[in-house]
């Protein structure tokens, strides 16, 4: 690859990272507005989250708890950014390789580990409890999620996300995985796992304010909290995009010269809908206890995912 190619690639990657962050912040703002309507309120302006981040980054004193505390956030943000860049967005894939579905799974675990490091360094018992809960939550939702992922891999006979997206986009909407009955089940299981990844009720156990005073974030303030909000915005985009890529064909509906514009808009609409669905669920359910969440994922969700896996296996053998 020549120098020019590398430069273009780097520019594109930066552009995607920035777009991902902005989209995340914008959606969080719109989400706050929608939730406010559910609450019978007016709600903040839709750009409120940009202001919040800017304010947090401009705060003056910042209390650090040592270099591990500083590094941990960096760890989390870079982990989630890498995840985003490995995902096909509207059918466009920048970093791609065979087997990147597994890679993405591992990358998704990095932020949680980053939090664990940061919270451990802060020494606050609330943060410690929160991190324990976050790790247990990860363990619980990964099981149904991995089973659905395996079902997809068996059906499409590949371990590359790009291939899964391409195979689903051959006939536009009609070939999306979610149109097939076994994958409807799988999509349900994966959506619940997504709820856990996004840390919304009933699975906001790691950050429960009434129980452990917002858990791992308890010692983050000022610039640290600002970075954390950026992380959350990127995570929101990355996790919903993963779902869209797996079940909704990555939002690819058009092919041709300027198709990527249409695909990008469709992708945006899809992740927005997924996010709205998730916050509406959050607005109407209380929070589980951690062992109840674990039971929910390993008993009900895992069984649903397993049924879809067996169903897919039978389809493939035929």
């Amino acid at each position, binding site marked *: 690859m020549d120098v020019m190619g590398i430069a273009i690639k780097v520019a594109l990657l930066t552009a995607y990272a920035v777009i991902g962050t902005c989209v995340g912040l914008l959606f969080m703002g719109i989400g706050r507005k929608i939730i406010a309507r*559910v*609450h019978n*309120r007016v709600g903040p302006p839709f750009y409120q989250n940009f202001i919040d981040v800017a304010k947090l980054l401009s705060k003056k004193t910042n209390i650090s708890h040592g270099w591990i505390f500083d590094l941990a956030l960096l760890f989390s943000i870079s982990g989630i950014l890498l995840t985003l860049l490995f995902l096909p967005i509207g059918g466009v894939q920048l970093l791609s390789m065979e087997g990147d579905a597994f890679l993405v799974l591992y990358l998704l675990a990095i932020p949680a580990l980053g939090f664990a490091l940061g919270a451990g360094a802060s020494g606050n018992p609330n943060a410690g*409890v929160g991190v324990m809960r976050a790790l247990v939550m990860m363990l619980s939702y990964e099981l149904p999620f991995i089973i659905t992922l395996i079902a997809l891999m068996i059906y499409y006979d590949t371990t590359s996300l790009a291939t899964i997206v391409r195979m689903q986009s051959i006939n536009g909407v009609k070939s999306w995985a979610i149109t097939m009955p076994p994958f409807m089940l799988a999509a349900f299981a994966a959506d619940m796992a997504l709820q856990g990844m996004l840390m919304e009720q009933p699975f906001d156990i790691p950050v429960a304010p009434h129980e452990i005073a917002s858990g791992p974030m308890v010692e983050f303030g000022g610039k640290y909290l600002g970075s954390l909000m950026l992380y959350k915005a990127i995570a929101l985009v990355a996790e919903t995009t993963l779902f869209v890529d797996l079940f909704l064909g990555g939002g690819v509906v058009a092919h041709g010269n300027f198709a990527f514009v249409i695909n990008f808009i469709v992708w945006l609409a899809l992740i927005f809908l997924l996010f709205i669905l998730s916050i509406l669920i959050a607005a109407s359910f*209380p929070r589980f*206890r*951690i062992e109840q969440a674990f039971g929910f994922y390993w008993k009900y969700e895992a069984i649903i995912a397993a049924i879809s896996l067996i169903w897919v296996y039978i389809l493939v053998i035929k």
Partner: protein
Amino acid sequence: MKEYELFIGPQHPGITGNMMYHLWVDGDTVTKAECNVGCLHRGFERLMESRLWMQNIPLVCRICVPEPDVNEAAYSMAVEQLMDWEIPERAKYIRTIVLELARIAAYLMAIGSYAGSIGIYTIPQWSLGDRDYILDIFEQLTGARIYHIYIWPGGVRWDMPAGLPKLIEKTLSYIEKRLELYDDVLFENRIFFDRAIGVGKIPCDKAIEWGVSGPNLRACGYGYDVRKLEPYAAYDEIDFDIVSYPDLGKFDTHEAGDVYTRMLIRRLEIEQSIAIIRQALKKMPEGEHILKHPNWLRWKVPAGYAFARVESSKGEFGYFVVSDGELKPVRVHVRGPSYTHGINVAERLLKGANIADVSQILFSLDICPPDIER
């Protein structure tokens, strides 16, 4: 994970006001809980000894902030006992209406903060918004939103304005309609069942010995209510049934004395209060609203000991008033229901509880720290 200590409060979302709990936690289980109160201690009882009998009315309502009217009522009743006063019929009915409205407001707040503690933030937004309509009624009746200073020894301060019953009826039917929504979102929610059933159980045979009262006692299966035991205001002329375990109306009955039953008792008593207010509005006679009273500044209350109790939304509220026949009381002692709920009962219930349940146990006991510390 090794044992660690956790300090909850006073600045913590999961605490009921300005108080502290010191928890020793092993893994996820609380092994020991110690209550630390005093953050709200203003020395009320000391201040009341240095003020005139009448000057104490604005002080007493500050003792229980979510439901101030019970304090005014209990203090006035204790003073009326010492004076041997029988208040006018109309004042009795107005008192009943005010106390029941305050009860609904306090229950809406209790339900809202409980729902917040298990993470469903829609309910607090709704219920506190709806509570504001009751505060509007108070504003029209008394001129203030929170501290009304409306119930006086000898009756009530002003008569009820003519248009108010209509507004009360409108608000009540609005709240009735909203209750169905609360049922859908919270009280019939599967996750609420999972979280609340069997958690924070008060052992029913110990409940009376521990001094549990009010809705918490009725959740243990004892149908005791001061409104029936020692009717005050106009409760003896009003027809109502005590809500107690195991009869939970349209809701399923599960274990006695747990968080679920305690919250449902509160939910059902809102409907009960609505019915009481409707009856009282219908039966309210015309007439005087206050007795012909002496000059408040030179008012001497005969010597003696008096004790008055009322049923608040948190439990049994009692005022013990001692007079030696002078311008100022010798001693006013307040029995707040949270005094037992917040210290003795909570310390015992938290022991062995899961750390995730600490906050919901505290909120379901409906602890109000100002009446512990005064």
